[in-house]
């Protein structure tokens, strides 16, 4: 797939704070860096894509995405026991995606590669 965009996504982790620090991944062709930090650092989580904007054009403000859920769901996700796409599934997962719907749709493929 040829996916060129640059997105800054803000993720608010509602629970499971202790799980996230230190997670830095090089993922696929699209996501350069995922740097998750503790709760309270609202600007800490960045997903950076390269190099040309796509969703920015559709969402001229600040593209934002929030993924929230209970600690057990984050644990399963980060332990690779449950893929992202399952973790946000309405039946199987405990995580909820909210924010800009278009950004969410575009970030889903990337996040599903981060947490495959």
């Amino acid at each position, binding site marked *: 797939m040829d996916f060129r965009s640059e997105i800054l996504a803000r993720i608010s982790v509602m629970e499971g704070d202790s799980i996230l620090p230190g997670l830095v991944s090089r993922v696929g062709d699209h996501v350069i860096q995922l740097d998750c930090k503790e709760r309270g650092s609202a600007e800490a989580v960045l997903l950076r894509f390269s190099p040309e904007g796509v969703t920015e054009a559709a969402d001229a403000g600040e593209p934002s995405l929030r993924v929230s859920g209970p600690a057990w769901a984050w644990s399963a996700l980060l332990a690779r026991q449950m893929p992202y*796409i399952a973790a946000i599934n*309405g039946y199987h997962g405990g995580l909820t995606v909210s924010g800009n*719907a278009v950004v969410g749709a575009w970030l*889903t*493929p990337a996040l599903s590669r981060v947490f495959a």
Partner: protein
Amino acid sequence: MSREELPAALWPLGDIAGNYVEVAGVRSYFESCGSGPAVLLLHTAGRDNRQWQWVMDLLRDEFTLYAPDLPGHGKSWPRHGEPCLNDVSEMADWLLEFMSAVGQETFLVAGTSLGGNLALLLPASSARVRGTLALQGADLTPTISETALDLMSHPQVSLPHSNMDFSLSLVGERAHHGARSFIEWGVSSLSPLAQQSDLRAYTRCDIRELMRNVTCPVIMAHGDRDWLVSRRMVDDTATRLINARSLEMVSLRGIGHFPHVESPLEVAALVRKLGTSVE
């Protein structure tokens, strides 16, 4: 699909005839081949009957196989007004009318995912079904959020892009290379409205109360690499098939959400077993 991507057993394909028949006022496309007892083959959400070509070729000497495209899918024309069906009961009615239109009073059914749910609903709705094979089928599948459904036809969302990882994450490691390529191509060529309608029907599917009406032989097969349709969902469904003449549970190891595409040989063997069970 090129020859080098396929196991030798799946090449070459024999003759498969494509035809049209009118069903509920829709010019509806189906493919058929073979001779023997009739089998209705049901594709997954948003896809078309090509998914079954490998299985059809393997079974042509034993069965008469029919693989329709639902309205608005593949080469079937869309309905007037609302292009695709978006309710499993309406789909079941349409499929029964389709089998009448091709002149088959009684038949076996095999279907996967949405088609697997329909493979359970059809014998619950009609005594014309002599036996059924539900692949990744369940009677309760509330798996897709309304938001996700709405996004599928959003003007700024590319469904093939956003759906690719979802679909490929459902493929098992034992799927042959050609299957993986075909599933990927299936996502690339998705019709948003067809996918949206099918998954709306799928996620709203709750046919638990009807399972007691199933009296024919049932085989439920589950690819164990499918996280969307879990084994628990399949097992829960099985507990409600209390009046089935026989019920066999099969685990397909290393296979995911698309067994008929990923492992046609195993699925063909299951259809044969189903045929034997109704004799």
